[in-house]
């Protein structure tokens, strides 16, 4: 008897893990709301923006990067849908594609973050402080997502159970949220040069 059978027929409503993740990402979205609110609060009180003559970021590369990251929502959703249909192989493949793109995004962003640090320091002024904190918080969430994806992937390699499916669906929701958050954070950071 598989774990699916042991736990009874497929449920109509979403699993507890998904609901737990929904509450978690709602809290995290509020956290980013506060960070972005702080960004604009500091900005509205400032005569020059960015402060201290810091050069605004270029627009093209961040937009391409965030578009690539946002595309992983499709693969995550495909993985989740394949899991629901009990196609473990397809779920693993879609998850793997998402993980590769997400890792590429993260690697580039870490590189970019370090390059920014060489140009100006978070100690310089209010803009620099909120810039690094906002971006750092977003990158931390991407990093956490990578860890979650890697963990789910490892679990799925051992076969599909209801527990693993629930985890996959919860992590998919997490990534949808992180992608939207990254989109908004990027738009915020780019807004001075728009």
């Amino acid at each position: 008897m598989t774990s699916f059978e042991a736990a009874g027929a497929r449920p109509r409503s979403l699993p507890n893990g998904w609901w737990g993740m929904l509450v978690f990402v709602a809290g995290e979205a509020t956290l980013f709301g506060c960070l972005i609110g702080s960004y604009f609060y500091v900005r509205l009180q400032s005569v020059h923006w960015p402060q201290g003559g810091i050069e605004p970021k270029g627009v093209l590369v961040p937009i391409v990067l965030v578009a690539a990251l946002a595309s992983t929502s499709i693969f995550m959703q495909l993985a989740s849908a394949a899991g629901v249909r009990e196609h473990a192989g397809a779920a693993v493949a879609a998850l793997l594609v998402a993980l590769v793109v997400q890792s590429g995004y993260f690697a580039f962003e870490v590189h970019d973050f370090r390059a920014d640090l060489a140009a100006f320091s978070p100690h310089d002024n209010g803009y620099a402080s909120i810039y690094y904190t906002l971006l750092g918080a977003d990158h931390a969430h991407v990093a956490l997502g990578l860890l979650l994806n890697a963990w789910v992937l490892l679990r799925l390699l051992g076969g599909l159970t209801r527990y693993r499916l629930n985890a996959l669906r919860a992590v998919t929701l997490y990534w949808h949220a992180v992608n939207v958050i990254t989109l908004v954070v990027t738009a915020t950071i780019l807004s001075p040069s728009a």
Partner: protein
Amino acid sequence: MAIEVYTPTARRRVDRLDAIWTERPGLLGWLTTVNHKRIGLLFFFTSLAFFAAGGVEALLIRTQLAGPGLGVVSPSVFNQLFTVHGVTMIFLFVIPMGIGAFGNYLLPLMIGARDLAFPRLNMLSYWFFLASGCFIYAGLLMGDGPDQGWFSYVPLADREFSPGLGVDFYALGLIFNSMSTTATATNLIVTTFKARAPGMSLNRMPLFCYAQLAVSFVLVFALPALTVDLVFLELDRRLGFQFFEPANGGSTLLWQHLFWIFGHPEVYAIILPAMGIATSIIPAFAQRKMIAFPLVALAELLVGFIGFGVWAHHMFAVGMPTVTAIFFAGATLMVVIPSTIQIFAWTTTVAMGTPVFATPLLFIGGFIALFVTGGLSGIMFAAIPFDQAVTDTYFVVAHFHFIIFGAAVFPLLGGMYFWFPKVTGRMYNEPLGKASFWLAFLGTWLTFFPMHIVGLLGMTRRVYTYQPGLGWDAYNLAETIGSYLLAAGLVLIAVNLCLSLVRGPIAGPNPWHAPTLDWATPSPPPEFNFPVIPRVRSAYPMWDADDRLDDRRRLEDGELLFDAGHQMPATTVRDADLDEILKLPTESASPLLVALPVTLVFVMLLTSHYIGAGLCGALALVALAGWHSREPQAA
């Protein structure tokens, strides 16, 4: 009518559930427990210990202020005392008592569940709570506690003006504490939505659960603002960031905005569990259904919602634009509406019922009197010129103590009496209970009411001492006498409950003929709560005698038993239709193994060992990876 065991078949079934659900005994059992009732008790006793500590701090503060020019404690210790007193009462007592103890213990019982949705997360949240409380108190015990007031305004809290570790104990400790509270709130939300007994649609859910749901949402959406604020503060203090430095493009008011975006909803988070307790006690002792049930449910949710739109009324004195101040004054007035709906519903229910003024109902009566008084002084702050005149005076201290102590704590005390028979299986002593109420009630008035007057006479809050001849002496002496009277009332409650634990008469499952499912279980409830999962057809399931008789039949027939392991049904969100059988995780050391390195992360951050903090964080992740190394469904 409780679900009782009458036949050998039923006994066999209950014994089987007992064998499945009973956790290991002794200390190890308490360290690894995931049972919501045990965790609720851990929250209860731990937050009670912090309440005692906060109470001693309050008495020291009042003793210092009993007369002019006294030197009971030093100015530095006084500053630490009032800061830690505020932090303790809000973060380490009222909130964990409201949701960690009462919510944890009672919510699953009231909705007919066997446990919370995430039992191990529940235990982790307890460890985080305990560790964060000890973390904050470590500063005080080392003589370097937080001393800048509970809202820790910058620039006073900046490194330049607070160079010690006190602010860091405060900031890191509260970030840590937020993790605990968020985990508990998440657990309560998911449990409320997904684990209600079949038939308990949202409109049949007890009002206590609405209050717990509202407070959980408030916390999930309010605490991130505090976390962001505290992270900014630590980054400024430790790494030289410029968030709060106006000379370098930061803003000191940013701290206040973020703090009060959290802080005002937090006030409602403090009082909502109390409202939930009131709506449990009143129908039981009035022996009638709550009047305007849907309106009260809506009002509980509205209180939480509107609380997010009023934060800047704490900042009328900072020089905001007039239009902004007027908007927040208007929003502040709006909070009156849901609060008043509830007050009318409570008082009318008592008036229309056949009330028995036993100790729990007396405490609710006291709560209503104190809440109305605190509410009336609170609404005065919506008048902007008045607010500006009394800002930072003892008038404000009087107002928020009527709300945060009178309105929030009195129902908790009443709730202790009310559910004492359920938790212990014994009755408390009624005459002693009534005496403790009157002592606490009179003590509260004597302590806090004169503060209105000295506030209007110009006594500012947080003063270490004062000169004689300002007209404040008699009021302060009365307040100090009142505080000792209040303390005597609280001690009498503890004495009553301790004695009753040993000598109290046996209570039985439902001594109050109360209407909610928590009274369907034996007293104290077994580890699995319900031998059969009850079916529900109204918001007062214990008054539906046929349904409870049906529970006995289903126990006999083996229907809805869920006895093939740690099983609990999950139901649909709106209508609570039976949807899925969950296998819940069993007792585990994992929560403790995760909590230990996380605690070390905060210790390392405090002592500026950032690499060590990273290593401990990695260790926590490893422990987390092993959290469900054996999946619940495969267990």
